[in-house]
């Protein structure tokens, strides 16, 4: 009975992340279907011109996806220092994204489109962007986890595994945000 000790198999765990992505999408599916029925029942949606900050934050989050992609590429070439630097950039971009979301909320509040009001479609913008921001926080956690793995010089397989789950999740929330933004744009 020989030790098969560390045949580290990341596949089932990566699959777990995918399943989480699925269930998360379903949750946002639930939100958007609420919105669809609500808007149809009113004959109109939120009726706002979305704040510009949302455009910038979308650009930022796309950029962060790109840096993360490059980081993964660097890791594949075993260039750890480049990977770390790119991950740090990603984290900074993520934080910038969060700041911009707050900014966007601020400018919405200034135009009078507040969270509490009798247009649930406007409240909805706050709720979905807020729930998305929670995902961003979780995503940053995963990136930091990948960073930590890289610094701790774990076995390469594990560093790569951490990197992979961070990537899966981060690209997902990137796409998710684009989806939400386009959805809100289209369903004015």
């Amino acid at each position, binding site marked *: 009975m020989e030790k098969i000790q560390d045949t580290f198999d990341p596949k089932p765990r990566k699959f777990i992340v995918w399943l989480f992505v699925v269930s998360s999408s379903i949750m946002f599916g639930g939100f958007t*279907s609420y919105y*669809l*029925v*609500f*808007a*149809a*029942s*009113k*004959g109109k949606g939120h009726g706002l011109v979305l704040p510009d900050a949302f455009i910038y934050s979308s650009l930022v989050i796309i950029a962060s996806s790109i840096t993360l992609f490059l980081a993964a590429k660097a890791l594949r070439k075993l260039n750890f220092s480049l990977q770390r630097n790119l991950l740090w950039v990603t984290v900074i971009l993520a934080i910038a994204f969060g700041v911009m979301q707050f900014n966007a909320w601020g400018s919405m509040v200034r135009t009078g489109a507040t969270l509490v009001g009798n247009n649930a479609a406007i409240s909805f913008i706050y709720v979905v962007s807020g729930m998305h921001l929670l995902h961003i926080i979780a995503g940053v956690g995963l990136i930091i986890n990948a960073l930590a793995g890289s610094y701790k010089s774990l076995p390469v397989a594990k560093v790569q595994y951490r990197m992979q789950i961070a990537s899966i999740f981060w690209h997902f929330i990137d796409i998710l945000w684009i989806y939400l933004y386009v959805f809100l744009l289209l369903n004015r």
Partner: protein
Amino acid sequence: MSEHTHTTEEHGHDDHAGLSKGKIWKVFGILLLITVIEFIIALVLIPKGYMTQHIGNYVYIVLTLLKAFYIVAYFMHLKYEKLGLQLALTVSFIFIIYFIVLMLTEGGFLNIHMMNH
């Protein structure tokens, strides 16, 4: 255990078959053709009154679905994926359409029955 169901295990090998250069161009041509037809409808048929806007909308939807099918099937490789995945994606796609139709009908109903001020 009669119906021998190997669907889950086999078909792995033709995963990467197909999608030669020629095929790509062919699919691209089809997509282009559909787009051209759409443009013709939008720019010629409807303004000239050969087709009403109403029917036009339906034709659009059908053509777009067709396009989506080609894109998903060939460019996104679904045509070469396992049967299970194909089924799952098709079923979810049908479901999503079904749900959207349901939601819009329900929204329309609420629109009439809610007291709007």
